[in-house]
């Protein structure tokens, strides 16, 4: 299975956003992404998968297959869910080392840094940290399996 490099996916997102003339268009696109992201199955909406922010809640589940990490997520706030959808598009299906190296500059480039940084240390920033934690864990497992 070939996977487009993370930087290329980020570049495409940045290009998509450069076409929007107004903030309304940008947010309508994110809201649409949020609405289109399939709801996470109830079995995954458990405390262990919950990234509880000061305002909205994000659920994140991860799986490891053929040396790659796959993510599924959901949120009770649709704008956050749209941003989560983009994070999944960028990071899911990649090898652990690629995920760990990803700088995710696109979030700043498309002007969503405030949503990333908000609500103290919780929310999206915590989600990215958790995605990288999963990648690190799977990388460690892979390393042990090779020994």
């Amino acid at each position, binding site marked *: 299975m070939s996977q487009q490099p993370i930087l290329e996916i980020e570049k495409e997102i940045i290009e998509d956003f450069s076409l929007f003339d107004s*903030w*309304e268009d940008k*947010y*309508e696109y994110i*809201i649409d992404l949020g609405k289109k992201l399939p709801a996470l199955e109830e079995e995954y909406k458990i405390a262990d998968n919950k990234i509880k922010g*000061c*305002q*909205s*809640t994000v659920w994140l589940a991860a799986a490891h297959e053929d040396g790659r990490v796959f993510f599924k997520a959901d949120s*009770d*706030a*649709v*704008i*956050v869910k749209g941003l989560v959808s983009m994070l999944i598009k960028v990071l899911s299906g990649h090898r652990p080392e690629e995920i760990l190296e990803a700088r995710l500059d696109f979030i700043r480039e498309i002007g969503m840094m405030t*949503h990333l940084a908000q*609500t103290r240390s919780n929310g999206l920033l915590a989600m990215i940290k958790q995605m990288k934690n999963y990648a690190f864990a799977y990388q460690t497992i892979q390393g042990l399996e090779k020994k």
Partner: protein
Amino acid sequence: MTQIDSIALDLDLQAIRSQFPILSRTVNDKPLVYLDNAATSQKPQCVIDALSDYYGRYNANIHRGIHTLAEEATLAYEATRFAVQEFIGAASAEEIIFSRGTTEGINLVAYTWGRQHLKAGDEILISGMEHHSNIVPWQILCQEKNAVLKVIPVSEEGELSMENYNSLLTEKTKLVSIVQVSNALGTVNPVKEMIDAAHAVGAKVLVDGAQSAVHLDIDVQALDCDFFAFSGHKVYAPTGIGVLYGKKELLDSMPVFHGGGEMIKEVTFEETTYNDLPYKYEAGTPNIADTIALKTALDYIQNIGKAAIRKHENELLVYATAQLENIPGLRIIGKAKEKVSLVSFIVKGIHPQDIGILLDNLGIAVRTGHHCTQPLMKRFGIPGTVRASFALYNTKEEIDILIAGMHKSIKMLS
């Protein structure tokens, strides 16, 4: 809604707004509409000038300096204590302790009076609408002392019933710690009645005045509360300065809080004797500049007059409530008969955070989330609310902008 005197008390809004420089800025290329006053109020130029004047003209440490600057700073600092005494009707300036804010004031009482007086099985009574700062210190204390924390339930309207309250008050109740005005609902609680009932069973009462001090006339002697805490930054003063009022006989008998600096009388390696009130509770170099600016803020409020401010804010509350109620799917959380100037609401099927994000893009600052009252949100079965809170400088036109912003946000999110 709060009853307002019928006399004419109209504010010159244009003049008032011009005194707050921040109100002329833009946010996301739109004129700022600041409706997050329950979190913190904006500062008038006179308060900003007071800070600048202190640092530019007489910055010095206080109480022990022999030079002119130290004398000037000490006099200005202590003048604030007298201004606070007058602002809340305390019997003496010794009863005014400067703190970092309401939270520190409550913690001071928990760690001093609470540790001194509480024993296993004793009870502390709070309400279901308390801010975390008026929950957590008591939880910590109860865990330490094996005491019991009891909670007065909140009705669907967002009120406390005296019947429920009286049923929870027993001879085991040692302290009632109650918010005078809810930061999440706007409810004004009947604290005078509650204080009298608490005293009848021998309990002391702490009133959390974080939201009330800026709106209501406070008279701690008339209330007969034992402690009253509030924050400067919600009364148009800087952050980092607050007040704890306590009855003198209580403060005198309580153990010290922080050690060092101003709170000592004499120190030897064998023994330390402590200073008199109020310095007994003001260890270290205090927040001099912000304390001095607190007086300017209180003078500013007093010069305009709380009655006039309250009348204006009540008009905004009535207007905003009526306009918001016309929005389909919108539900106001907190419909108490006695409210001050904030409206908390949710919209069916839409997360409050999403609304807050879109309103911010329109230059409108509201607070969204649980407002540090998670148990209260749980009681209403909601993740949080959108909260619009008003101050003396807000206008009906700004509420119109909020309403238009709400319609736009709901349309985008639906």
